């Protein structure tokens, strides 16, 4: 596992192992503000820049303006759900680039299989914590 150390006391010193090179923009797509808050805290701690969307429609518009490097994606959302967003994203110009991690309470085989078949890079089951999230980033982002 890649150890990401963000040392705030370092100030401007760009000495951290992988932290200065890798992290980019992460788009947090979830209708739960609590989930976005928890994820934001973790991603910022890992050195990412974050943006947020409360449904797939808003997320798609944000992607068209600026393509993120990582998308953390909920399944059930009003207006446009995560799977619809993913399908549209992968057909958008530059939309094959982001590492998409589904992040949902849906844990059955059918959901996992449909997510992967439609271009999800990984699948994280809620509840998540820093360790389980970093393990997924390690598989689909840091190692790329």
């Amino acid at each position, binding site marked *: 596992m890649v150890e990401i150390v963000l040392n705030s006391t370092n100030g401007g010193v760009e000495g951290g192992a992988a932290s200065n090179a890798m992290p980019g923009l992460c788009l947090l797509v979830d209708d*739960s*503000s*609590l*989930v976005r808050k*928890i994820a934001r*805290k*973790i991603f910022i701690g890992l050195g990412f820049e974050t943006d947020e969307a409360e449904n797939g429609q808003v997320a798609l518009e944000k992607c068209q303006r600026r393509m993120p490097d990582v998308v953390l994606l909920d399944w059930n959302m009003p207006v446009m759900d995560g799977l619809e967003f993913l399908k549209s994203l992968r057909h958008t110009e530059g939309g094959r680039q982001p590492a998409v991690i589904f992040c949902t*309470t849906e*844990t*059955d*085989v*059918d959901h*996992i*299989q449909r997510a*992967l*078949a439609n271009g999800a890079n*990984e*699948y*994280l*089951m*809620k*509840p*998540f*914590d*820093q*360790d*389980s999230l970093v*393990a*997924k980033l390690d*598989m689909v982002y840091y190692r790329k």
Partner: protein
Amino acid sequence: MSVDEVVKSRTIADSALATMQRLEVPASPANYAIWYEYHAGQSPNLQRTIDVLISNDASFNESTLQDLYATFFSSAKEAQAVRETSMHALKTLQEIVGVADLASDDAHDFGNTLRGIASNGLGRSLGNLKNLIEDLVEETQSMAGRSEYVGLRMRESAGKIEALERNLENAILDSTLDGLTGVSNRRAFDNVIRRLAGEAMNSGDDLAMLMIDIDHFKRVNDTWGHQTGDTVLRYLAMTLQKAVRGGDHVARYGGEEFAVILPRTDGEAAVSVAENIRTALAKEPLTLDVTPPLTPITVSIGAACYEPGDPLADWVGRADAALYSAKRDGRDRVELN
């Protein structure tokens, strides 16, 4: 099959059996086909889906296994390749387990082991079930090692293995319940807290847990024997179920320790549920015709609330720590962490 193919199949079969054992998957033909295919590597989608389940610590319960089979073994797309592989798989399994030769002592022992497993009251508890599967796999593997001498013959073992599979499938259905007390067992508890914590993370609703331990339980066992100890455990389980509310979950966490999961409950409300439990025990004591007379049963209780974003183990750990404080501070009390 060529010799190379047989050796390759055997290697895959060994890996499949080992993985099934590790993940506590019952040894049915359908499950075996899934795990054979997983290790054979002919179906990347099956592999990725299973890797997702494993990396999320998901439990391979009956419904997940059925879904895997239905998704990957009956869809038209991958059906052909997978069907061929599963035929190989089943044939190899039959070769391994079906080498029973009635004239051989090995086979006789194997048959007895199967009989023993089948008549063993099958899987009252998960630990029991796990032991049974371990026995089966161990016996199967040691038979496989001797099969060159015994020769490839299918005999009465086929019928017994089928019966065993049926029994194991029934056993796994029961395996969410604790055999002694009838409340959820540890495995079911782990699944319930995961599901409820996921929902709480989405909704922001409160979620609390009580860890409950019988005071001086060792003394009960030492003074009045284990049968009385078992009666005390059943009495507490019943009292807990009566004292909690509709959506709450009671589980036997292990030994004389129980857990109650309380959805939409904050710390203060959790403590009042815990106090209700203590009151219920005092109001309706267990009466048994034993000498010396049974002393009143009391419990120590630790309460803790789920913090979304924290590991589940931290939550359980905080409830345990509160329970420990309650014990240290004199027992028969409630602590909130």
